């Protein structure tokens, strides 16, 4: 069989001519995702509440046509209208990656609404609002789209003190399943990537009180060791690109074997 012309020079993960919104873009998984997507020729719309962090992202991106917005995703009511504005200004979106997330490690007796409300807003409700914004005609690219929610192994595992975080992430799996069916006729796919413990600024903050023993135990819980943000970004790109065109309502767990053991 003869080779298809120039096939070796085409990358199936290519996001050429696609515009992708990434939340939590200033650090960790979101930042690594922006970096990777720009190398796959996507135009990236980087969103984060941390504006100085966003500014420093510019040096990580290749290509042109990227945009950045300082936006607090806890302001869920404004999300759909704000997405309509940014689509009007810079063109429709082909993908949304919700990587923004707040940690929450608290024993139940200290879990007051004042403490957890913002976690649920940013981790969970913002995902719903992003999907609402994305499905609007003028926002989503008519060629079709892909939504990826970054959940967590805590969506299916449990840990003392992780009640709210776990709840906020498990809800994303339920959300993705129903939206997958509802949005399929509009050619929008909805999936989750569920990472294990990844070396990010959030993880560093969370693990700073741990002693060596505790850290070793968490590492040992991952048969392949702790992950890096790019390990997760690869799977996000796979689900955004045409390689994932028949995948919807799925959870791709990227956790070094954490949930398998």
């Amino acid at each position, binding site marked *: 069989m003869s080779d298809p012309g120039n096939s070796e020079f085409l990358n199936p993960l290519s996001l050429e001519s696609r515009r992708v919104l990434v939340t939590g873009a200033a650090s960790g998984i979101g930042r690594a995702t922006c970096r990777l997507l720009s190398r796959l020729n996507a135009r990236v719309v980087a969103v984060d509440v941390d504006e100085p962090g966003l500014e420093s992202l510019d040096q990580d991106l290749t290509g042109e046509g990227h945009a950045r917005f300082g936006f607090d995703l806890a302001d869920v009511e404004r999300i759909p209208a704000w997405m309509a504005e940014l689509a009007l200004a810079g063109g429709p979106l082909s993908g949304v990656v919700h990587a923004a997330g707040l940690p929450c490690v608290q024993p139940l007796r200290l879990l007051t609404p004042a403490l957890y409300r913002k976690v649920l807003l940013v981790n969970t409700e913002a995902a719903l609002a992003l999907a609402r914004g994305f499905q609007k005609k003028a926002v989503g690219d008519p060629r079709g789209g892909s939504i990826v929610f970054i959940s967590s192994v805590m969506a299916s595992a449990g840990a003392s003190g992780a009640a709210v975080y776990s709840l906020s992430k498990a809800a994303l799996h339920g959300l993705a399943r129903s939206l997958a*069916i509802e949005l399929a006729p509009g050619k929008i796919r909805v999936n989750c990537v569920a990472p294990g413990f990844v070396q990010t600024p959030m993880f560093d903050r969370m693990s700073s009180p741990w002693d060596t023993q505790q850290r070793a135990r968490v590492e040992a819980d991952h048969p392949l060791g702790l992950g890096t943000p790019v390990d997760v970004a690869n*799977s996000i790109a796979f689900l955004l690109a045409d390689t994932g065109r*028949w995948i919807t309502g799925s959870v791709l767990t990227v956790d070094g074997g954490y949930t398998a053991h």
Partner: protein
Amino acid sequence: MDYRIRIDGGRRLHGALGNTRVSMNSNNLTLITGASSGTGRQIAVHLSQTRRLILHGRDSTRLLETRALCRNPADHVLWNFDLREGDEIEASLEHLIQADQLAIEGFVHSAGTLKIQPLRLVDRGAAHEIIDVNFMAALEILRLLVRKKINDKHLRGVVFISSTASKFGARGFSVYCASKGALDAFMRAAAVELAPDVRVNSVLPGATRSAMTAAMLSDTELRSRMEADYPLGIGDPDDVAWAVEYLLSDKARWITGQEFVVDGGRTVNITA
């Protein structure tokens, strides 16, 4: 028949997932079982774009057909063997590896057999056959591929072609469901035991257009019923192959012990 044509006229994807073009012209091969037909053949044709393969199959004529469909046919090694002969797998595979000094870095278990029978009519012989091919053969081959004497420490990535039948029931599918459930449970245990040297994952595909489903899909009524079940429509075998290629590649270096459902949304569509 060219299995690489997408029937619905969708855009074809070519090329490798990033810099995964290794192995070609080297002695590092990927073994794919069940390559003589169905999903296995299509995965083989897809992976042959970037990898040297050992094509396993029971039917030698169809195995040769698969090789002819592959890129650079002469590069790929054939393993003509019946996996129902569980006791003979070791001798046959060992002979194949040693005769050609092969190093197997990837293993895709796609061989599978299905017999739809109501539970009250299941006979033990048929049940054993399904369990032997769908599950026991994967266990036996993986066991051999991680033995230093046979394959040194060459093995890196393993993907089992499971099925959504591993998670959900269907009438007449009891043995098949059990065999795929066993395969996935084994996958997780092997992933934990073989980490960090070898990664082991499953892909759970829905129904794709293939020679196997062509008859079903030519029945207009059945076809429209199936299409209604799949939010994204019936899939292309390549859509499953991309997931296999991804999980074998270094891009998935932190993924092990996972079930990856690739089914156009079929299993979340509980109303179907």
